[in-house]
Structure formats: C-alpha cells, structure tokens
C-alpha cells in the first residue's frame, strides 16, 4: 500500500499540488485521473521520488520514503516498476537487453538465470520472438509491452503506469489495460495508473482518484463514478457522448 500524506509542490509561484492525501491499495489498480495540467504527473514523480515535494511525505507499506537517504531509497526503488508514457526504453539496447537490464544491475542471478527470467517476462507480454529487435523497430503497443516486461522483471511490489495508453489504438489500449490488470493480480502489486483516458478507467480501474488543480477532489470506484460527485468531475468524466450515454443507460 502506498500512502500520500499532505503532499504539496510548487514551481515558482505556481502551486501544482496542494495538500494531496491519497491511499493506493495493494492488489488493486488505482487510477489517478484528471485533465492535462492538473498535476497528475507531478504527483507521480513526487510519489516515486523523481521530484521532492515541498511538504508532506509518502509511505510505502509504512516506510516513510521521503525521509530516507539516497541509499535507503534504492532498496524501495528496486521494488518499484514503472511504465512511462513514451515507454522510456533504452534505445541503444535490444528488447531483451532492456528487460535484462534491471536484473543485471541489481540481482545476483547468473547470466543463464537472467536469460531465463527475461524470457519469462517477454513471454508474459507475448513478445517472445521480439527479443532481438531494437525499440525503434517495435510498434507503440509493443514498446509499451516491453516496458511492462522490464517493469515486472524484478518482481516489483509497486507498479506505476504513466498514461499507458497514450498514442495507442483502442484495441491495443485494451490489451495493455488487461495486461496491467492481470499482472497486478498475479504479482499482488500496488498499481497506480495515471490516465485521462476514460475507456481505460472504465476497463481497468479498481479505485479512482480525481485530481483537479493540484488537489484530489473525488475518490471512488468506476460504479460510483457514474453517480458523479461534483461539477469538475462530471465535466471531465462525461465530456464524451459515449460516457453520457453510459450514464443515461445506467449500465457499465
């Protein structure tokens, strides 16, 4: 479980996050949704320590991540997998080398064990035959799946996905959503997905946090989302005809 306690962050005079409190539960896919520029990505970066919050702290299963030294943070970071918006695969390495990378850096595995584990991860994302390709030779959907394979290579306890479906066609997006759901259950991970894609939210979310102007305005599930909560949430969720029709039919 990941808990955010009173996180605030400003850049100059611009307050990006204001006193954010949230709990991301273990074994669930926790969505953070909101408009572009609402502070979702900064919230994620504060959570994983890429940006230091001005106030507040983050705990990973009770461990205060914000108070830890760089060395102590490394231990928690090795328990974190992250899928980036642009996949962030190392473009000088092949797909297989990308997946092997965290294992080579942090495990005591032999080369044979590393090879086997990376093959397992690639098989899990159905990319067994793509190991020798370079990221530039892969489609957007494949790159996302390689990103997931790399993220799960070290058996993480926490998985962060930043806009996992951006730039993907609807069918591929659903494949990625389902993959995220499945591996969350398989590895019993705390998964946090940053998204503004409502299809993805309705497909894969267990819990939803709605961020607006740097604050969490609403928390709930996809069922309770249909009931609305406040005007900002309704403007965001029911911006599309499809969502309005779902609300009027009352069925997910």
């Amino acid at each position, binding site marked *: 479980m990941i808990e955010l306690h009173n996180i605030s962050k400003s*850049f*100059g005079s611009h307050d990006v996050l204001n006193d954010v409190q949230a709990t991301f539960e273990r074994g669930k896919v926790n969505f953070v949704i909101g408009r572009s520029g609402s502070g979702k990505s900064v919230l994620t970066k504060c959570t*994983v*320590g*890429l*940006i*230091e*919050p*001005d*106030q507040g702290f983050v705990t990973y299963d009770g461990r205060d991540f*914000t*108070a*830890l030294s*760089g060395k102590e*943070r*490394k*231990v928690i*970071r*090795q328990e*974190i997998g*992250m899928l*980036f*918006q*642009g996949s*962030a*695969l*190392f*473009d000088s390495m092949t797909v297989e080398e990308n997946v092997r*990378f*965290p294992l*080579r*850096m*942090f495990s005591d595995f032999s080369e044979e064990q590393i090879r086997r584990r990376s093959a397992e991860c690639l098989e899990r994302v159905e990319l067994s035959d793509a190991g020798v390709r370079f990221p530039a030779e892969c489609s957007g959907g494949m790159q996302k799946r390689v990103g997931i394979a790399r993220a799960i290579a*070290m058996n993480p306890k926490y998985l*962060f996905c930043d806009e996992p479906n951006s730039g993907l066609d609807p069918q591929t997006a659903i494949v990625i959503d389902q993959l995220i759901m499945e591996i969350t259950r398989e590895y019993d991970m705390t998964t946090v997905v940053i998204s503004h894609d409502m299809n993805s939210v309705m497909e894969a979310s267990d819990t939803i946090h709605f961020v607006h102007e740097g604050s969490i305005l609403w928390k709930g599930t996809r069922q309770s989302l249909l009931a609305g909560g406040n005007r900002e949430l309704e403007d965001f969720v029911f911006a599309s005809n499809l969502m309005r029709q779902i609300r009027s039919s009352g069925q997910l």
Partner: protein
Amino acid sequence: MVMRKYDLNLPVPVSTINPYLRTMQWMFHIGRYMQLLAASFRRPEKWRVFKDLFILELESIGIQSVGIVALLSLFMGAVICLQTAHQIGGWIPVYTVGFTVRQTMILEFSPTLIPVILAGKVGSNIASQIGTMRVTEQIDALEIMGVNSATYLVLPKILAGVIIVPFLVVLSMVLGIGAGAWIGVATGVSALADFEYGMQVDFKVFDVIYALTKTVVFGFILTSVSAYHGYHASGGALEVGRSSTKAVVWSVVIIMISNLILTQMLLN
C-alpha cells in the same frame, strides 16, 4: 521536508542582460556542474556493468577518433614544417625546422587543438546522447530502478576521456612530427639529418609531461562539460540540439581558459 544531498532537478534561472543576475546564473551552472560531478564519482552499482560501459566509451571516444586525429595531425605537422621553412633563411640554421615542428606539436598543437577537435566530435555526441535520454525519460527510468544515473552515464565517459585522450595526443605528436619530417625531405626544405638534429636539440622531457598534464585536464573538461549540458537538457529535439551546441562551445571556452592557467602554472 528532507532535502536530498544532490538535487539535480533544480530550476535554471532565467537568462538576462542584468549583470548581477547573469553572474548568479553562471554561479548556478558552476554549482550544478559540481553537484553532477559529486553525484557521478560514486561507487558503481555493478562493477561488471561499469567495466562494459567503460570499454564501450574507450572505443567510442578513443578508437573512433583515431582517424580524424591522424588526419589533422599529419596535415598540421606538414604545414608547420613548410611555414617554418618559409620564414627561415640566411643565418637561421635549417635544423630550426625540425626544432619548431617538434616544439609546436608537443607544446601546443597536439595537446590543445586535438582536445578542441574532440570537443566538437565527442562532446556533441555525449551531450546529444545523454540529452536524448533525458528528454525521452530514459534517465528517469534509470533513477526509478534505483540506478545512480550520473554514475552510470557520466563516470565511464569522464574516465575514458581522461585515459584515452592523452594516447590520442601522443599519437598526434608522433604523426605530426613524422609528417613534418617527410614533407621537409620530400620538398627539399630540410635534409633528414638536419630535421633529426633539430628534433633532438634542447629536448626537455618536462615539455611532454606538461603537454600530457594539460591533456588529462582537457579530457576531463570535454567529457564532463558535455555530459553536464546533456544531463540537464529539457524539452524536445530542439533543446537537445541546443545542449549539444552549448556543450561544444563551453568545452572549447573552458579548455582555452584552462590552457592559459595551466601554462602559466607549469611553465613559469
């Protein structure tokens, strides 16, 4: 709030013509450069991985630069020989040609111009490589995994630069002097015996030590300054290009300033 010892994500002050703020901006960059160095000189996570990266960098910075270094050195040595021959005559002995080629190549051309050329070739490569990794979130990916991105990306380049650049410079000295001798004999401006005698006249081993000392410093500057500009690139392709240009410009400027300081310190 707990401050991390090395926060490499500090905002860059806005550029301005105000001299005070301009000075502050310079101080900011110097401070952040020092922070990057402090973050880079840490124990690597895995020595095996570090060794592989180091060898790759030796190849990238050193072996891949042999061609351009050789080409420039051959022509520089030959031209110095012809220019010197053009200027001497009458009572100035012919062996001065060999003496001048040797001194010019050892004291200045090889140890200073070769690092300047490498700042253009290697420095822009380092800045664009690291800058692209920054803007495509590959550096964030390293940090999330728990990898010290500065040690992983910057340290192998600095060490490789410090070690391989002196070898390139020695190669440049040998080729430059050799080309000077060949062109001198081939064009008839100096007999081989005169050239050889000039090469040996008043030879001081300290001159070579001085040259190699400068080279080690320049190797450090061209790799670390370029890495700094790449590491702190932000935005997109345009900014990566700009960081690459800045890397070359600042490497050359700092090499030239260091050249003056080191020469004053070591020769006087």
